[in-house]
Each structure stands twice: as C-alpha cells, then as structure tokens.
C-alpha cells in the first residue's frame, strides 16, 4: 500500500477526530450524488427508449441494487469512518478462522499459554494482595509499627511482644511524631456465655487509642473510652464480629449485657466490623488500663499513627533519640536497647516479600519459556503457510500488512489464553491462599481477590506475551521473499527456511537456559526444604496432642490452686486409655511465644546492666519432657516434690550449658534472675536443645522452672498417645472438665501440625518452584522435540541421499541427536551462567545449602541434558527410518 502523503495523513487524522460531526455532511453529500447519478441513469434509459416513469424506476432500482440504498449508504459511511478499525476486525476474524482451521496447533498453544498466564496471574494476585493493594485501614500509609531491639543480641526484628511497658508509658506522653500511639498484648481468657459451655477466647488487651490508630468503626455499639482504659475503670469488652456471630448468634441485644470472663463480670459495649483486626485474629478486645507509671517487662506490641506530614524516617529518628534517653535514665533495662519505626506493611509482610517476588520471577521465567515455545510452534506453522503467505502477497498484501496480520493472530491467541488463564488464576489463587505461610497476616489474605490490578496485569501479560511470541514469525514474514517460495513449490532448503531454522534453534537454546534457571531455583528450594525436614527439632512431634488450658486468675489465686489443678488434670488425662505421658509448659515450641530475661550465676561477678545473658524462661510440669520426648542429658528432671516452699530448682538446655559453663559441670550452680534477685534457682539437670522458633532458627539458652515455683495460669498441655492424636481431643477435654467444669481445652492441635506449619513457607515455595521447574523442563523438552522433528522433516531429502549413499541408522540417529545435544548444551551453559549469577539473590530463602551448591547445579544440568538428548532421539529414530527411494522421489 502506498503511503498517502503527509498532508493527506494529517487530513485523514483530522477527519477521524471529527467523524461524528461529519456523518450528517456525508449523508447529504451522498444524497446529492445519488440523485445526480439516478438522473443521469434515467436520461440514459430514456435515450434507450423507456418512458420517463419507467426509466426513473429502473434507475432507482439499479442504484439501490439488492442491498437497498440505506444499507449501502451505511456502508459508504463506514468506509470513511473506520478504514483501520475495519482492517483490524478483518484481521481478527481472519485470525480466528486460521486458528480454527488448525485445532491441534491452537490447542497446544492455548494450553501452554493459559497454564503459564494462569500461574503468573495467580502468583501476582497474592503479590498484589500482600505487597501492592491498600491495607484495609483508612490511614494505612500513616500507620507504623514501633519496636524495640537489642543492639547487641541477635533477636528477631520487632518480635511478638517485645515492647517495654514502662517505656511505652513514658513515650506515649513524650513522642511528638504520632497523633496516636497505641499498645496491646494478647492473652487467653475463659468466657462463659449465657446457655453455653465455657469457651476459651483469644483476647487482645489494648489501649483505647488502638481503634483510633486503625481508624476503626464498630459494627455495633462502641469501642472503649479513655475513662474505661484507666486503672479501676469499668470492666468492659468488645467482641469480634466472628465471635459474636458464633457464640451470641449475631444477636444485637448483647450490647450492654454482662457476661462472665475469667470469673469477672464484663459489660459488652461493642462488636467490631467484619474482618477487622491487626496481626493475628482475636475473639475479644479488652482495655489495657495501664497506670501512668506502669512497671513490667517487654510484653507489648506498639503501633502508631503518624501525624500528617511526618515521615517514617523522622519518626524513626525521634524514637531512637527517645530510646537513647531511656538508656541513660534507666540503664538497668534499657542499656544496649534501641527503638525503631517501620511501615505497617513491612511489619506485616516481613520476610514473605522476598519469597513472593522470587516466586513471581520464577513464574515469569515459566511464562517466557511458554512464549518461546509458542513462537516455535508459530514458526513451524509459518513454514507450512509459506505458500499461503506468498499468494496473499501476490494479491497485494504488503509485507507490513502480513506482519500485522500475523501479530494479530498471536494476540488473538494470547487473549483467548488469557481469558482461560484468568479462570485458572482465580482457582489457583484460592489454592495458594489455603497453602500460604501463616506469617502473612490474615487481613491481607482476606484481600486476595480479583481486582482491576489482577485483570490489568493479566491483560498486559497476555498482550506482552502475544507480541513477544508473535514477533519472531511476524518479522520473519515481513522479510521473507515470497516469490522464492512460490517457485520453490514448498520444498524446504530455501534461505528463508534456513533463517527460520536458526531462529527456532535460538529459541530452543533460550528455553533450555530459562529452564535451567528455574530448575536451579527449584533444586535449591527443594533441598532447603529437605534440609529443614531433617533438622532434629529436639522433640518428637509424632503422636502428640497439644492444647491450651487457661485458669482464670480470680478463682485460681494461689500457687497451690494452680499447681493443684494441673496435677489433678494431668492425673486424669494420664489415666485415659492410650495416653503414654502428659505434661504442660507455659509456651510451647513453635508457637512464637517466649519470655527472655537476663540472669546471673551466683558466685560469679554480676554482669553490667543490660549485659547479662538472656535466658528464655519457661515453666513446666514434671511430665513435660517425657510427653515431648526431650531427652535428659545429665542430672535429674523435676518431680512433684519441686514445689513452693522447697528449694528453687531449674533445668537448663544444652546451649545454655555450653555457653555459660563451657568447662564445668553446670549442675549445682545457682541462677539468679535479673528482675527478681530473691530467686536463687539451683540447676539440677541439663535437657536437650529444642528449636523453639522453627528448624531454621537458632536454639536459645533455655531455663525451665517447675510450675509451682514459677507460676503461670495459662499452660500448653502436651499429651503423648498411641495412634491418632486427633481422636483424643474429646476425652482430654472431658477429663479437664471433670476437674473444673468451667475450664475449656483451647485450640487442640496435633504437634505435627505445629511442626509442619513451621516449615510451611519453605514447603510452599519449594513445591511451587518444583512445579514451575518441571513445567519449564517439559516445555523445553517439547521445544527441542519440535525443532528436531522439524529439522528432520526439512532435511528429509538430504537424509534420503545420505542413506542411499550408505549412511547407517546409527549415523543418522547420531547426526540428529548430536544437533539436539548441541542445542541443549548451549542452553545449559548459558542458563548455568545466568543461574549462577542470580543464585545469590536466593540466599536468604535457602537453608542448609549454599546458593551456588555444586551438586544441585551438576544434577540439574545432567537431567536437562538427558531430557534434551531424549527429546532429540525420538525424531532421530524417525529420520533413521527414512526410505531413500521415497525421499529422493519427493
């Protein structure tokens, strides 16, 4: 098509812009032209001998033709308005027709693309919800987490409950960066709702301004007032929406009613909105009622609302200054401590961000492989359509036009795939959310849904990949010499098909190298996961049931009452058939709970304030170690006789024994708590280390104390059983109720579930990576197979000649396989370089394996090479069966 001159193009553009106004002009112009035409035709008919009437009728009939004047006036108008739109729709129609004519090709391409687009979109939807979408709070971008951290000890950043109570009480008055500075902690409470069994509820004890920080509105009633948040204020509680629905049947009349919680009467003042929350979900909200000069340990979490205009950095600087001042004023607890501020999202997403981005990158690679594969399919198809294209060029289609046509075909293909892919993505997302690691907090997962970002992303991916895989064949068509192929009469070996062969080989090399990158990632993740699985946790998770038992402080005020309850309950549980051992601990491993405090050893010089070693203190009942399967290394375990009034005793973990007593026997030494100088606990034994924070985390210095001497009203009970732990839930709960009918067994869970939850994040990324890796491998293998099969077909004639000249089967097979192997090796080489360069980025996702692990790299290279050779072997066998006679005759 000749390009119309520049001015003409400008005019055309202007006309298109003003198309609406022109429609009327066009109609009137057309009408004048039509009447002129009809008049002329009438005159001619009259000259030919018709009567004027007949002539006019005939002329009008002629003009209108069969289609009717109106209809083709429309047509004339369309011609003007939408030359390019029309061309596009024609291309699309043509593309759809072409795809329908090649159902095998279409099915293969659509399946490949739909799968990979679906996978990409599914991963993206999670990334979107976790990292991109707005958090469900009105002032989400101004909400920050405020944390304290030791500058010398490597504790987790911003741990659960690591914020000092007195520091909070001071800073809430002095910090200038925040318009509201809230703190909270969690606890288990027993609630007795009217006409129901006692239920153990997760309570969040918070300052009243937490709701201000989160910008929350109650579903019913109201939140706490500042008066209710003061010491001695009225006892009120707010129910979460779910808890209210479940235990109060969604009755709006509960507002103002009183219920019993931990043997106290509380007034229900409000119900939160559905899905409202921060961090982990809770059942009820209670006011903290903190006194102005509160004492206490580091048991809080703090979040704050930045004043408008204050940046996170400014707030962070202020908190660091305030923390430094506290370190001077109160060095005993604050030396070597600092405070920091980070955006809420960072706190919520934590380490998951890296996992998610890595997975998105991995699935992106898969998509690239799929694109390369489809490009290859299209090129193969283009080869078989050379004649068709040649004829179209003869009919006046310009190469540019043809290229656009082919590109349209690719985009149509990818759009069809994207629609299917979106459906897959929505299903896949549901699955992903179910499998997602629990360290992504719930309120963000509530947001994983189909939103405009997901649809836009999928559309962009579809268009992008359509252009990407359509580009090669389109460019190819634009440069092809069609006359050549017309004359060729379809036999291969033209310059064009050789160029196409090179392009296809390059695509296969690219596929192989991407597949290697994916497999390398998969290999590293799978090996990390298996390393994690093989870490000895320090206890035996199989055949053990756990559950939380919380005693209300009002009815269980004395150590004898608390210890007596657990003694009786454990005795009843132990008597159940199939129960082998039973015990309890203040904080079970893998629950993320701990209470770290400084300690000294009697007879040694006390450390400087803040310099003491941090011991992780836990209270246990005598049966705990047997129930968990934690071995005693030396000394003795606790007995029921280690009670209040008897000498204070302690058990320590091996890590503590090695760290504090490297060259002596720890037994007989006496531990003095930093915060309670009156307790002098003698070490009576050493027990095995336990990975309290999960297999990937270090072991801590543990100090175990007998429950009566170190009182906790809320304990995790562990029951070692024969057979399936889940089947013991009812009998155990019943045994506990026999001791006190108002005490429930909360969240009964098999210990194995806790253990598997601790590796859930690695398991998920390992399995997704493995899935993507295997898919990539399969696609790459199909790619090699396709290219080799095509080559064999193209060289049919040549192979025939070789066979005729005496080449043996193994010669021919060797020739083809060698070519396939060369492509594989080139791909593996490039991929290995890429993967090696990128592996460092995965360092922090890995466990127990270096990112450049030679064994992993060697193994997957060998696997990939083997698959490549096999994929080439199949067409090679076919080549070897070429009959020279038929090959030469063709």
């Amino acid at each position: 098509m000749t390009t119309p001159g520049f001015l003409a193009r400008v005019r055309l553009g202007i006309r298109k812009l003003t198309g609406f106004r022109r429609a009327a002009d066009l109609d009137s112009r057309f009408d004048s032209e039509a009447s002129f035409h009809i008049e002329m035709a009438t005159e001619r008919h009259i000259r030919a001998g018709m009567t004027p009437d007949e002539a006019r009728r005939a002329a009008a009939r002629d003009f209108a033709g069969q289609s009717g004047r109106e209809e083709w006036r429309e047509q004339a108008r369309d011609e003007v308005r939408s030359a390019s739109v029309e061309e596009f729709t024609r291309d699309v129609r043509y593309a759809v027709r072409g795809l329908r004519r090649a159902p095998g090709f279409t099915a293969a391409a659509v399946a490949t693309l739909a799968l990979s687009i679906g996978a990409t979109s599914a991963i993206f939807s999670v990334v979107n919800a976790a990292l991109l979408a707005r958090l469900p709070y009105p002032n989400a971008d101004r909400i920050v987490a405020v944390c304290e951290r030791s500058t010398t000890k490597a504790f987790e950043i911003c741990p659960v409950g690591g914020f000092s109570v007195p520091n909070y009480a001071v800073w809430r008055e002095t910090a200038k960066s925040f318009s509201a500075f809230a703190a909270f902690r969690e606890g288990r409470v027993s609630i007795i709702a009217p006409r129901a069994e006692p239920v153990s509820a997760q309570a969040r004890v918070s300052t009243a301004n937490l709701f201000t920080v989160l910008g929350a509105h109650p579903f019913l009633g109201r939140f706490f007032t500042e008066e209710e948040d003061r010491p001695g204020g009225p006892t009120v509680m707010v129910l979460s929406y779910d808890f209210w629905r479940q235990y109060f049947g969604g009755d709006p009349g509960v507002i103002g009613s009183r219920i019993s919680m931990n043997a106290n009467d509380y007034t229900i003042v409000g119900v939160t909105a559905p899905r409202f929350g921060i961090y982990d979900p809770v059942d009820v909200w209670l006011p903290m009622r903190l006194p102005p000069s509160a004492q206490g340990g580091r048991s809080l979490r703090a979040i704050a609302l930045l004043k408008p205009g204050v940046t996170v950095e400014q707030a962070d600087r202020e908190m660091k200054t305030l923390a430094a001042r506290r370190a001077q004023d109160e060095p005993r607890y604050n030396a070597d401590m600092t405070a920091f501020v980070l955006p809420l999202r960072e706190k919520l997403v934590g380490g998951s961000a890296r996992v998610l981005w890595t997975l998105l990158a991995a699935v992106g690679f898969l998509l690239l492989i799929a694109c390369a594969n489809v490009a290859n399919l299209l090129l193969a198809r283009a080869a078989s359509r050379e004649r068709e294209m040649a004829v179209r060029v003869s009919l006046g289609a310009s190469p540019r036009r043809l290229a656009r046509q082919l590109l349209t075909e690719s985009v149509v293909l990818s759009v069809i795939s994207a629609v299917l892919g979106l459906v897959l993505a929505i299903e896949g997302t549901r699955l992903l959310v179910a499998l997602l690691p629990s360290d992504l907090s719930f309120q963000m997962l509530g947001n994983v849904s189909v939103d405009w970002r997901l649809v836009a992303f999928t559309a962009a991916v579809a268009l992008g990949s359509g252009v990407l895989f359509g580009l090669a064949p389109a460019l190819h068509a634009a440069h092809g010499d069609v006359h050549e192929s017309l004359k060729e009469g379809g036999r291969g070996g033209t310059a064009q098909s050789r160029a196409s062969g090179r392009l296809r080989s390059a695509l296969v090399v690219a596929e192989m190298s991407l597949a290697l990158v994916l497999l390398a990632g998969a290999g590293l993740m799978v090996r990390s996961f298996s390393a994690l699985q093989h870490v000895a946790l320090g206890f035996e998770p199989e055949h053990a049931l756990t559950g939380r038992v919380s005693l209300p402080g009002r009815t269980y005020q004395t150590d004898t009452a608390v210890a007596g309850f657990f003694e009786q309950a454990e005795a009843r549980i132990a008597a159940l058939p199939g129960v082998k051992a039973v015990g309890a601990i203040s904080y079970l491993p893998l629950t993320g709970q701990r209470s770290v405090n400084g300690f000294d050893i009697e007879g040694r010089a006390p450390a400087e304030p803040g310099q003491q070693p941090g011991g992780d203190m836990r209270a246990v009942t005598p049966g705990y170690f047997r129930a968990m399967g934690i071995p005693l290394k030396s000394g003795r375990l606790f007995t029921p006789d280690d009670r209040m009034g008897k000498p204070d005793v302690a058990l320590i973990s091996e890590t503590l024994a090695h760290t504090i007593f490297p060259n002596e026997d720890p037994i007989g030494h006496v531990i003095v708590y930093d915060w309670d100088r009156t307790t002098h606990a003698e070490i009576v034994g050493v027990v095995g280390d336990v990975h309290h924070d999960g297999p990937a985390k270090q072991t801590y210095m543990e100090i175990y104390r007998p429950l009566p001497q170190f009182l906790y009203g809320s304990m995790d009970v562990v029951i070692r059983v024969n057979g399936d732990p889940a089947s013991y839930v009812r009998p155990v709960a019943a045994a506990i109720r026999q001791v006190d009918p108002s005490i429930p067994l909360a969240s009964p869970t098999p210990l194995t579930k806790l253990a598997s939850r601790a590796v859930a994040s690695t398991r998920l990324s390992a399995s997704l990576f493995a899935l993507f890796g295997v898919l990539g491998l399969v696609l790459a293998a199909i790619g090699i197979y396709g290219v080799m099969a095509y080559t064999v077909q193209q060289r049919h004639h040549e192979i025939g000649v070789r066979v005729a000249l005496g080449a043996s089967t193994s010669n021919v097979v060797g020739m083809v396989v060698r070519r396939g192997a060369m492509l594989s090796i080139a791909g593996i080489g490039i991929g290995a370089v890429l993967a090696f360069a990128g592996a460092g980025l995965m360092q922090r996702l890995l466990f127990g394996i270096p990112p450049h692990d030679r064994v992993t790299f060697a193994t997957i290279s060998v696997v990939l090479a083997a698959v490549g050779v096999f994929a080439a072997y199949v067409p090679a066998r076919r080549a070897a069966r070429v009959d020279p006679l038929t090959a030469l005759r063709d």
Partner: protein
Amino acid sequence: MPTQKPSDELLRGMLDMLVLKALQLGPMHGWGITERLEQGSRSALRVGQGSLYPALYRLEEQGFVSSTWSTSDNNRRARFYALTAAGRAHLAEERQSWRRLSRAVELILAME
C-alpha cells in the same frame, strides 16, 4: 487468498485499481466513472453503484483521490473526483502487483 470468500478482497482491490485508472484520464463524477469503465471494458464490466461509491469514499479517505463540487456537461451540480499524486503512485503499484498476481494465478493454474 485462500479464505472462504476470496472474491471480497480481490474484487475490492481490483475495483479500486480500475477506478483509479478511470480517473487517470481526467477528473470525473461517479456516473461518468461507471460509463468510462463500461466503455473501457467494451461493456464486459458493469460496476454496480453499490460498490462504486463506497470505493470512491474509501479512496478519498486514503488520500488517493480528491473530490469537489462542480458542474457537469449538462450543467448539473455533480461531485467530481480527481486522482492525487498518492493515487497516481498507488495505481502504478497496483498495476505492478496485478501483473504479479496474474503471473501467480497462472502459476497456480498450471500447477498439478
């Protein structure tokens, strides 16, 4: 072109070329173009008006012809079409491609 309806595109391209050719002889109104084509083909081709006017509008839109109101031989107001420079070039190219087409068609018809 091996689609189900090869005639559409083929005939449209051909009609465009013939219209341009008719205008190469000088500016003319729609009626005159049909007469020129009829005479030129010794009455073998009769261009239906249903195709002619859309073709003219399309060619004008593409910048290959321009049009203006003027007076016909018998003193009536009529829309006159004239070939533009782009139209002239396009016609030359179409001629080329028509030659190639007829050669290709010949090749195909000669194929076994």
